C-alpha cells in the first residue's frame, strides 16, 4: 500500500491535471429573446463552425421539436434552418448523437465543447466562423456569425448580436 501510493499518485495527478491543461475548447452562449407575439413557437436553432470558404467544419448543435406534433414530425421543419440545411444539415440523419436536442425556451443557453471530443473535432489552425441560425414557425429567420482564429493565443471572448430571432451570441475561446 505504502509502496504503491507514492509511485502512482504523481502519474494520476499529472493525468488529471495534464488532461485539463490540454482541454482547449469553446463555450458558446446563445440568447433566445423573449418575443411579444400573438403566436409564439420556440425557434429551431442550429450552431456550426464554418471555414473561410463557408464550408462546414463541424456541426455543434441543432435544436428542433423532437416529438411528433399535430402537424407531423419535427424534422419536417428542419429545412427552415435554410443555411444550415444546405451547409450539411441535409446530409445528417436526425436525431444526431451529441448534436441534436429539444427546442429551448427564451433565455440564455450555454454550450461547452472540448477539442477532440465529438462534436468539436480537432480543428486545423486557421480562420473560422461560429454560425448560429434560428428559424421560428410563424416567425422569422436570422443568422449570426462570429469570426475567430483557431487555435486562440489566449483566452478570448467574442460577441455578436442578433436583431430579431436571436439575442446576444457569445463565444469564449479556451486555449
Amino acid at each position, binding site marked *: 500500500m505504502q509502496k504503491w501510493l507514492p509511485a502512482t499518485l504523481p502519474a494520476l495527478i499529472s493525468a488529471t491535471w495534464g488532461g485539463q491543461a490540454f482541454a482547449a475548447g469553446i463555450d458558446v452562449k446563445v440568447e433566445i429573446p423573449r418575443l411579444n407575439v400573438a403566436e409564439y413557437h420556440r425557434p429551431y436553432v442550429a450552431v456550426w463552425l464554418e471555414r473561410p470558404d463557408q464550408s462546414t467544419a463541424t456541426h455543434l448543435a441543432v435544436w428542433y421539436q423532437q416529438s411528433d406534433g399535430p402537424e*407531423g*414530425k419535427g*424534422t*419536417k*421543419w*428542419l*429545412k427552415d434552418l*435554410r*443555411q444550415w*440545411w*444546405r451547409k450539411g*444539415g*441535409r*446530409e445528417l440523419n436526425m436525431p444526431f448523437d451529441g448534436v441534436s436536442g429539444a427546442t429551448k425556451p427564451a433565455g440564455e443557453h450555454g454550450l461547452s465543447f472540448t477539442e477532440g471530443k465529438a462534436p468539436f473535432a480537432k480543428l486545423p489552425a486557421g480562420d473560422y466562423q461560429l454560425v448560429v441560425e434560428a428559424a421560428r414557425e410563424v416567425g422569422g429567420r436570422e443568422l449570426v456569425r462570429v469570426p475567430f482564429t483557431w487555435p486562440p493565443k489566449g483566452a478570448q471572448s467574442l460577441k455578436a448580436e442578433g436583431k430579431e430571432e436571436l439575442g446576444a451570441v457569445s463565444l469564449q475561446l479556451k486555449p
Partner: protein
Amino acid sequence: MQRTFKLLALAAALAVSTAAQAHSYWMVPSSTVLSSPQWITVDAAVSNDMFHFNHRPLAIEPLVIVAPDGSKVAPANVSKGELRSTFDVKLEQKGTYRLELVRAGIRANWKEGDKPKRWMGTAEAFAKEVPADAPDLQVSETISRLESFVSVGAPSALKVSGKGLELQPITHPNDLIAAEKASFQFLVDGKPAAGVEVTLVRGERRYRNAQDEIKVTTDKDGKFAVAFPQAGMYWLDADVQDDKVSVKAAKQRSLAYTATLEVLPQ
C-alpha cells in the same frame, strides 16, 4: 404608299398579337426542398402570367413522376378545374424526384378540297391516318418537356433521357440561392446544344410592371450560368428547331424545354 404602310402596320400588329398570345404552360410544386418524407401538391396550368391561374388547366395525362431510385410514383387526387389542374404526390424516398410531362408527336396540315385539315398524333398513327399524297401536306415533329424537381434530404443526381431538348444541371435545381451563380447545360438528344436562347421569368408578374425576363444563351458546350437576382419561383424556357426528323415526310423538328425552379433567399 398608303397601302404598303397599312400592310406593314397589319403585319406588325399580327406579330405582336402572336407573341402576346403565346401562352406558357407550367407546373408549380408546393415545396421543392423537404427535410422529411411528406406530401406535396402541384398546380399545373396554361396562362400568360407565370404561376397565375388565369387561362386554362394543363392536360396532365402524360405526367410521369420519377423517384430517386428510378421507380415511378403515381399522382394522387388528380383533378382538373376550370383554371388549373392539381395533383398530390407522397414523397417517401431520400433524394430528388423529377416531375416530367413529355409530349412527342407529329403535326400535319393538308387540304381536303378547300378545307384545311389539321392532325396531331404519334408516328405510328401518322403512317396509318395521314394520306402521304395529300395536297399541300406539311409535316413537323415535336418533342416538348416540362419539368420540376423536389428533393427530400440531400439532392441526388439527375439523369437525362437523351431524347429531345433537356437540361443537365451542373448546379442542382434544388440548390438555387438568390445572388449565387448557378450553372446548367442544355443537351439535344444527349449532346451539348450551343447557341440555345434561354428565357427566365420570375413569378408574381402581376405585382410588377415589366416582365423582367432574363435572357441567356448557351456557349459552345451548351452551358450557361445565371445569378438569380432574387428569391422566388422561376419559369425557365428554351426552344430549338432542327431537321433531325424521324419521320420521312417531316421537314423540321421543334424541341421545347420548360422547367419551374425555386430559388431560396440567402
